[in-house]
């Protein structure tokens, strides 16, 4: 009985040792990976820090102006030559003031069947709103 128990205990001990070793090994590997990942994060963070400073150095206005003067054909135009949209001339100037457009009347040609024969020898009387010819010529508001 004791021999059996000893065997069982020893087997359990062996299994536990194996299990413990496996867990410890997994933990060691995970720990190593974690350390590497953290170190990589620190390295990347440091690289970002350095690159940010480098970017700030490279985009200094003094450096950009020197480069622009050397490589581009841009003149150093002062800001006073900038203007606003309101200062631009209109592309198509209006033909008449807006008020005249509001009061415009549509001109309809007179029908050909009822031509108005001007009297060459006599003075043309002034058109009257009551005159049917005037009414035919002027419609609308």
């Amino acid at each position: 009985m004791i021999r059996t128990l000893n065997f069982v205990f020893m087997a359990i001990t062996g299994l536990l040792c194996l299990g413990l070793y496996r867990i410890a090994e997994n933990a060691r590997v995970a720990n190593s990976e974690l350390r590497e990942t953290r170190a990589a994060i620190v390295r990347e963070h440091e690289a970002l820090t350095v690159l940010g400073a480098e970017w700030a150095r490279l985009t200094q206005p003094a450096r950009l102006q020197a480069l622009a003067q050397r490589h581009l054909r841009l003149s150093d135009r002062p800001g006073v030559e900038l203007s606003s949209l309101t200062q631009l001339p209109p592309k198509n100037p209006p033909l008449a003031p807006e008020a005249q457009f509001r009061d415009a009347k549509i001109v309809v040609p007179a029908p050909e069947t009822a031509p108005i024969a001007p009297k060459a020898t006599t003075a043309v009387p002034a058109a009257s709103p009551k005159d049917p010819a005037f009414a035919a010529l002027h419609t609308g508001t």
Partner: protein
Amino acid sequence: MDARPAALSLVRSRIALAALLCAAGFSVIAARLTEVMVFGVGAAGVATVAEPAHPMRADLVDRNGVLIARDLPVSDLYASPATFWDTNEASHALAQVTGAEEGHLEEAFAPKRGYVLVQRGLTPDARDAVMRLGLPGLTFEPNYKRYYPAGRIVAHAVGQVDPDDNGISGLELGLNDKVRGRADAAPITLSLDMRVQYVLEHEIDEAMKSFRAKAAGGIVLNVRTGEVLALSSRPDYEPNRHALGPGDSIRNRMTQDVYELGSIFKIFAFSEAVEESTIRLDEIFQVSSLKLGNHQIHDFERLGPYLSASMIFAESSNIGTAQIEMRSGPTRQKPFLRRLGLLDPLKTELPEVASPLYPRHWEWVEAATIGYGHGISVNPLSFVAAAASVVNGGTLLKPTFLKQDTTQVGERVVSESTSRTMRQLMRLVVTDGTGKKADVPGYDVGGKTGTAEKAENGTYAHHELISSFCGVFPISDPQFIVFIMLDEPHGNKESGGFATGGATAAPAVGKVIARVAPLLGVKRNDTFAAATP
């Protein structure tokens, strides 16, 4: 037969002892298993990243987020000379790669004992180069080094740190408590605008070169929020080096030096006179000569013999201004200047601020000369803050180097009406007076010129001038004030041989305004632009 039970008892007791030992062993194993698997004790804390030797400082950025100062990771290199085969060879190799002095290393390595500092602040590239040497006994201690990407551009305002990352000058010192140990916090946003700073520095350099000035300085200030957008002082220095180069200076002339600023001080004499209604602007004064006791007051050029009060300001007549100031007298002038903050040390984030100098006995003659800017010395930043207080509607403005979102509402120093009148007078200076060269079409610049003779050995040196101009734009609704000062400028062909503020500093201010106004979103005056061919 008696021996058998005794032997059996002995065996049993041994088995019991062995079982007890086994049980104890298993208990220990079980306890450890439980500890590791359930509570996880012992698993944590092994993967740690080495902390730097001291806390980092927070980044400093300008108002648009542009980096001004940052701690960069570097390494301090130490060596154990006992491990070197040949100390001279090691000294040579390390000196080549790190820039350390070879002779110093040879001397330090010679005893072949101890722990020797080879070089501080190695960049990652230099550290890799050292690693490639393959020398034994080298240790890299992680550290940080403050780096200023803009270099000289903003050196005086931002300042420097010592090798241990403690602020020793400028905002690095003034904001040390806010910056130090806050590496993980948000960056500190300053009021400075690097674009405006660059333009100011560029135009100051051009003016210095053109007029062969000994030194110069400039300030751009928001008259509503009190934010200093740019501050420049020449000569300057390289903040990334701890040693000064030839001709360099760490002296911030805009805050650390006090000057008799001359006629730009007339802004305050006229503000006081308008506020106290001691003059009418159309009132006529005799400006041909004035003698106060033994003191003869001169104008830079002969004016008059009669000038209106407004033209006295526009043409910058000392004789006229002295008469106007005499109407207020010393008893009213001194409290007025104190209200404007001109008689007390300026309080701002910059620690290097000089106190004003003014006469102990402030009588009538002193009042008259102080009226036109002689006999009182203030630092330029204090002057600019006081001038901004006059034109911003009349409330005291405290300059700040930290970004602000709201308009400052300070104590009232002059009425809104006086502020409006002063703006009209300052516009008159540019349209009809001594500051014509500061005009910028479309931006309605107002301002005041100043030309002061430098005091030397108790007298004034006629050919050593402090020439300055203080410009405000747009004058109808002021947003910014631009001040430029040249120390001992010399007239040139362009200035007609004159070295006055109107001939030297005023055009520089005009150029700064023309370049920064669009950057700062100040709209052109379209009415003016439409009238311009």
